[in-house]
């Protein structure tokens, strides 16, 4: 199993509340190759994002991010932009699940969009449940994800975990 590097540092891209998965990958692109899909991620909310996003950048989105369709390709496309991790005030249930399952680190901070601006320098520690805005000095501590989900991230996603660890099912609640 891989080693989880749970700490991410990068530049903030801030997005509003209630963004549906269709804004991450529109229905008309779902059958296209990923290098085409990533050119359109979140373009309706910020056309600069897919053009200017840099490896390690951090997306901070408002309440109910990734709502509506549970298509995993939405989380895969966001990961494929090269961002380090994604933070939301509250993720939609299926998007939260898909993030861990496809190996995109994520953390919920209930007032995240109130304490960041575009371009702020952020530090996020998934395993500790720690968030710091280096630009403003504001910090937050939250409960970290369950050990099972952290193992999933460390393995690089659910399929890697279940294909490499024969005890994945019996150890899920530990």
């Amino acid at each position, binding site marked *: 199993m891989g080693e989880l590097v749970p700490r991410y540092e990068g530049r903030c891209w801030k997005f509003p509340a*209630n963004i549906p998965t269709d804004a991450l990958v529109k*229905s008309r692109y*779902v*059958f296209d190759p990923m290098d085409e899909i990533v050119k359109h991620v979140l373009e309706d909310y910020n056309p600069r994002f897919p053009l200017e996003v840099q490896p390690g950048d951090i997306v901070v989105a408002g*309440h*109910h991010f990734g*709502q*509506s*369709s*549970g*298509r*995993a*390709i939405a*989380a895969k496309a966001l990961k494929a932009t090269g961002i380090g991790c994604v933070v939301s005030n*509250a*993720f*939609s*249930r*299926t998007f939260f*699940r*898909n993030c861990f*399952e*496809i190996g995109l680190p994520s953390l919920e901070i209930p007032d995240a969009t109130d304490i960041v601006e575009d371009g702020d320098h952020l530090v996020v520690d998934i395993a500790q449940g720690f968030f710091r805005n280096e630009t403003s000095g504001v910090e937050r501590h939250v409960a970290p994800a*369950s050990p*099972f989900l952290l193992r999933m991230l460390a393995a690089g*996603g*659910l*399929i890697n975990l*279940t*294909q490499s660890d024969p005890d*994945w*099912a*019996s150890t*899920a*609640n530990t």
Partner: protein
Amino acid sequence: MNLVEKILARASGQESVKAGDVVVANVDRLVMHDLSAYLTGKVYDERIGKDLPYPDRVVTVFDHHFSPPTEQQADVLNRNRAWTKKRGTQLFDCGSGNIHNVLMQNGLALPGQIVVGSDSHTPVHGAVGAFAVALGNDSHAGTVMPFGKAWFRVPELIQIELTGELQPGTTPRDVALWLVGQLGEGSVIYKALEFTGPFITSLGIWDRWLFPVLCVDLGAKCGYVEPDDVTREFIEALPGGRLDLLLNGDGDPVEDVRRFDVGVVPPTVAAPPTVGNVHPVDELVGTPLQWAELGGHGGGRLEDFLLAARVLRGRRIHPDVKLNLVPGSREVFRQALELGLVADLHEAGGTWFPPSTGSNQTANMGAMSEGRR
């Protein structure tokens, strides 16, 4: 334990589970539509590739493309057909109906079962007391297909208690939409919702259907109605309808109960852009419309065509309006034929479409131009 906890405990081989536990449970049914089946099958072939141990648990329904508009989409359906044949899974091809309606009508979502699917409206099967949840494709490809299992976090429960009598001119759909306005979109993320109270128990299964189908808009993980005699009678009449897995919750007190009187609900409309934008119909009367459709995950029921025919029989729709009628399944269309509803709504100016999920994602029924509604 409540119903969800009892189903998850049994399916994970434990005496009891509680909210917050992570369990790995045996899954009874995986249902996918044309889009999710393609993406999931591709992941499965690339990453796993072995034979499925339980192919009969996997069902695919082509409901987004009853007649694919492009070669690319036709090719996706052909790849799906080849995949289901190779893997031995069940397929309902174009024209069968809406994914969830087809599953229910064919006795493939039963009380006490665990039903999963990529479609965000999968929780609708809680209408008969199944634990029904939308998962992502990697759960389906990585654990449901190769192991017959999935991981779940046991959700906290909120009871939604509905009492009182409807005002004349209101229907259970008005109550369901009004409820989204009352609770708020994305207001109960990760929770299980139990719909209960005398109003709910007075409804048939296809009207109960209208409540858990809205879980995705509320943010809930799942929703259900405790199975009762109405459930038993409905399930026994289905092909393959079985009650041997049926469970009921123990009736333990629930901390978070939200009580509503349906007697105050007005005829209600959910306007664009999302289901949470609900208004009393009085506020919107006179708004010009060009496009109307009875269809989708919640709207192609026999009940919808009965209501429409009651209003439109012997009358004509406005010449500026296009009324599309999309039965949720072949069974719905057959019953609509027998009851004379097909002729009534045809004469009124409506256009019948093949059983499918209608204009969902505008894959198939044509696009609307800017400014039309």
